[in-house]
């Protein structure tokens, strides 16, 4: 392979224009997950975690976690009072809603990401891997074209152009370089790469007992599945399946021929964990990100087939009834 062929491949991967349907849907899903964190998981306990008299106070975090080095934290700019921290909580929720509906999308997404960074710096002990993942992909989402579709921004832009009589400027949305979406895809592949590497470095995943132990952590119990959890043969199968699918999650996922099988396997893995183990946000952060691997035209085709199917079904049902 020549250097110019490599450069061509690089440019094709990062910059060949793509439709933005997938990344805009991902923005909505990401926003809903952050909203879940802000309202359900932090909600009424926000001051217990981040207030001036929190479980872990800011001076202690600065001294023992930041080691007196600088960290980004919006909350340092605010007076350390309950009302100021409470107002920040509200601003965080509003910014997340703006992000979901696509209003001032780039700024609201940036605000949401920087707020996640601030909250994670302010109290690093209450976040799970899902929260960490949302923080890791946040900057790439903010710099993507995630507001180009299904957003108030796009709707307003078209409305203004229509009022000005500039019908030539009214578009569904132009295809753009998907470099930021690629970064989100790579971020997910990096997760599977490291977790796979760490798993095979331990003894439990190699002797097949890991899922047995994982399903017996009583602080994480969710819905019961005794037929699986009490059958060592099935637990071993799940153990090997986890290793294989996580290996595929950073290798075979990049090839068109195998991608959908890998996505299906990963979806099964995360849904299975989410059913048995209580880790809100964690599994869904990864499940939603799997969507970024689906090309926009496949997704559009899928939804249009689904809509045709249901329209036909409704027509049969109500059409038949109207004749009676």
């Amino acid at each position, binding site marked *: 392979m020549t250097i110019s062929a490599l450069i061509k491949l*690089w*440019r*094709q991967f*990062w*910059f*060949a*224009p*793509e*439709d933005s349907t997938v990344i805009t849907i991902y923005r909505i899903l990401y926003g809903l997950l952050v909203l879940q964190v802000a309202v359900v*998981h*932090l909600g009424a*306990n926000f001051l217990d*975690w981040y207030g001036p008299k*929190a*479980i*872990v*106070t800011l001076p*202690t975090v600065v*001294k*023992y976690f930041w080691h007196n*080095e600088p*960290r*980004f934290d919006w909350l340092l700019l605010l007076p350390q009072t309950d009302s100021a921290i409470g107002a920040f909580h509200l601003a965080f929720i509003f910014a997340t809603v703006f992000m979901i509906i696509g209003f001032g999308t780039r700024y609201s997404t940036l605000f949401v990401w920087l707020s996640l*960074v601030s909250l*994670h710096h302010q109290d690093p*002990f*209450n*976040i*799970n*891997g899902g929260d*960490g993942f949302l923080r890791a992909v946040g900057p790439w989402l903010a710099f993507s074209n995630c507001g180009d579709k299904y957003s108030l921004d796009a709707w307003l832009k078209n409305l203004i152009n229509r009022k000005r009589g500039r019908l030539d400027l009214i578009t569904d949305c132009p*295809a753009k*370089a998907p*470099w930021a979406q*690629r970064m989100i895809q790579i971020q997910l592949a*990096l*997760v599977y790469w*490291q*977790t796979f*590497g*760490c*798993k095979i*470095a331990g003894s439990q*995943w190699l002797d097949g007992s*890991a899922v*047995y132990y*994982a399903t*017996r*952590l*009583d*602080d994480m*119990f*969710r*819905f019961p599945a005794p037929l699986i*959890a*009490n059958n*060592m043969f099935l*637990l071993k199968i799940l153990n090997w399946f986890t290793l294989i699918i996580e290996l595929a999650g950073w290798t075979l996922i990049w090839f068109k021929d195998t991608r959908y099988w890998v996505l299906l396997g990963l979806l099964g893995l995360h849904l299975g964990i989410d059913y048995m183990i*209580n880790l*809100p946000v964690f599994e869904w952060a990864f499940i939603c990100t799997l969507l970024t691997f689906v090309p926009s035209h496949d997704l559009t085709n899928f939804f249009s087939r689904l809509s045709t199917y249901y329209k036909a079904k409704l027509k049969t049902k109500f059409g038949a009834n109207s004749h009676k």
Partner: protein
Amino acid sequence: MINYKEISKSDFKEIGLSFVVATYLFFTITWLCPDAPIKTLILEPVKQFWLFWGLEQNWKLFSPEIREINFHPEAILTYANGERMIVEMPRMNRLSYGERFRLEKFRKWSIDSLPWPDYKEFWPDFARYIGRKHYCANNKPSSLSLNLYWIEIPKPTAAGISELAALPQHTKMSTVFFYKYKAEDLP
């Protein structure tokens, strides 16, 4: 119809973005590699920048080993008149599905951080938080001890495995922290 094969003419923006993504990926992949002197050397120039913006990451999910014990921490608050109060962190297996979901952050903190010596600098804050939460002006809290109750998960053997419903209770106990309140700790 979008022509996916078509690539716009290379410009400064592409070169700049290529530099950003290549740099980010180089340092992030290095960050995720196993610890080694070369890794420390490579990350030294960017470490502060990475930490400042929260770019550090670690995905050792359920690995390399899954813990082989079940446990829960419990605080015992002693008041001036000798009365004692047990303050239990939310125990997920004793909550409804909805409460487990809502209180996940308490689980994360009380299981992965609170009882472990690596977090001992944060214990006095916790003691003060509990003291304020359960403050009584006529009978002030005088001390707090943080206890850890635990039990090993039975190992799977050729004879069989421990069924979920038959997992043993957390019957072993150790005190991990004791705190005597000072006047300035409480309202």
